[in-house]
């Protein structure tokens, strides 16, 4: 078990190293372009070359890459061009804001999708199953920007109940979180519910459930004590991997509602050409994605003895 976790961890580090190198090539192989972005479009060639010299850009490419990795590992991502402040100072509060958003989404999505998935999978083909299945296809077919549009049209423009932007200008306001959280939950719960349903349906047809039913156990007990334990292994990995999807959705939702989170920061950095900020944001996003993959792999092995003891 430990060996497997160590091997997965090694693979994670290898992937992070490769990705950081690819990103460094994409962003920094054009040295003069970097200087132009830092000094502005009206800087002269001499100024740019002086800046490159002063900031160690005339070292060999590999040396520069290793120095960059070293600084990044100690939390120094350089200066943001647009905000004229250290990238790290910008990054952490924004990550915190997105963390609040993600926490609310998971707190709502997990109970909702597991309950619906189990209810649908308990009796495959029943009207409840078909309704839940259709509902989850419907909500996963509506992309975040479209469902945000519908919800804003109803709750902001028609009813006037909720604010249409979530920039939190007047301090933290939970009411401004309602629409972003709702949009993300709507898009994401369907997939987890479908996975839970498939897993539950498979367990319900297995021999040991039949045995439990035949020996006369009450239906409640068959479901709660026997079926659920095995049916929830697969959804666990799906929920952890959902972080990767959530990161994508978060960008759109934060831009839509002007929420000052990590996704909006990444988007603004990309559209403004703030390359050091964009580098840092991309690395953080990839780290979250790769780390959640690692957790889901290890967790799945821990939860499923058939894999653990092989």
């Amino acid at each position, binding site marked *: 078990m430990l060996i497997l976790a160590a091997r997965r961890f090694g693979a994670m580090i290898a992937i992070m190293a490769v990705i950081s190198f690819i990103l460094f090539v994409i962003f920094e192989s054009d040295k003069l372009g970097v200087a132009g972005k830092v000094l502005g479009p009206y800087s002269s060639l001499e100024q740019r070359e002086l800046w490159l010299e002063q900031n160690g850009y005339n070292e060999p490419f590999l040396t520069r890459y290793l120095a960059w990795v070293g600084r990044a590992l100690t939390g120094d991502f350089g200066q943001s061009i647009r905000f004229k402040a250290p990238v790290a100072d910008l990054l952490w509060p924004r990550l915190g804001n997105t963390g609040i958003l993600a926490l609310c989404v998971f707190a709502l999505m997990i109970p909702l999708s597991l309950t619906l998935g189990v209810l649908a999978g308990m009796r495959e083909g029943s009207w409840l199953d078909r309704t839940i299945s*259709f509902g989850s296809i419907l909500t996963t077919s509506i992309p975040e*920007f*479209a469902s945000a549009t519908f919800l*804003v049209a109803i709750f902001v423009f028609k009813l006037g109940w909720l604010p249409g932007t979530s920039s939190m200008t007047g301090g933290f306001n939970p009411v401004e979180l309602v629409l972003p959280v709702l949009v993300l939950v709507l898009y994401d719960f369907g997939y987890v519910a479908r996975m839970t349903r498939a897993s539950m349906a498979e367990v319900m047809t297995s021999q040991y459930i039949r045995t439990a039913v035949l020996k006369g156990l009450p239906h409640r007990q068959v479901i709660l004590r026997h079926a659920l334990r095995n049916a929830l292994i697969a959804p666990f990995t799906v929920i952890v991997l959902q972080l990767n999807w959530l*990161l994508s959705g978060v960008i759109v939702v934060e831009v839509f509602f002007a929420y000052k989170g990590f996704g909006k920061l990444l988007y603004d950095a990309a559209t403004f050409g703030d390359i050091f900020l964009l580098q840092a944001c*991309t690395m953080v*996003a990839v780290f979250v994605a790769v780390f959640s993959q690692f957790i889901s792999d290890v967790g799945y092995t821990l939860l499923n003895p058939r894999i653990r003891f092989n």
Partner: protein
Amino acid sequence: MATVESTAASATPAAPSRLGALLHAIGLLRESRIAMLGTFLVLFWVAMALLAPVLPLLDPNTPLEPFKGPGDLARDGETVFWLGTDHKGRDVLARLIWGSQRVLVWATLATAVAYVVGMLMGVAAGYLGGWWDEAISFVANVLLSFPVMVLYIVIISALGASGANIVLAVTFASAPGIMRIVRGLVLDLKTRDYIFAAQTRGEGAWWIMLVELLPNARGPLIVDACLRLGYTVITIAMLGFLGLGLPPPDPDWGAMIAEAVPTGAFALHAMVVPAMAVSSLVLGFNLLADGLREISLRD
């Protein structure tokens, strides 16, 4: 019910001909109400996209009269804005239908390119194995580690927003997933007798991969392609919404929403209508994929 089964049974012997197989498949589709709804939605938008040049539409890029509601008459008393106009006074119906053409053309192109790349990677990894498999799988794992939206933003902001770059970005994001599916299918198929027969005949590796393996892996791939088409429609509209998509002023569903939201209080229809269009097209592809999967499981 009995008649349905008897026709299905009598249709089976005709299956060897291409037309017969197609009719058989349509017959099966008709049994699933979900698949029928999906087919209808997809065909509706395909028809709109094809008919866009012949329909009596207003020009989609000309500013006429701003903030007209759905069904309002223009000042000339004759022209009807069936779905109203947007904040710049452009006809929403015309933009919607021309937008359907744009999104369908680019989504199909991008998915097709991603499929060609993904299938070649998958069949090579699965059939050649060994070193090839290691290398291709590693590349796929690296690309799959990116949150998709981050990958799109990095590619588009590095290369600029254009149709070709969207195709490239979709290929980078989708080909690894397609590769995994194809690889799994090929690993299963390559132990079949007809592959050994081809090897004994002395066929080359590429012939076996492209002519013997890929066509036999098509079933699950068709379902996956439907899902991916829907997802690519979302991607293109989402990039349009973020201002990273196909260049203006030609109508783009995502950009239509982004432009209409700030003035939503005066022209709610201008933001709701394109959002409904995207959702219905994606729903069509997803329902079709679901129906096809159900049918393929039944056989």
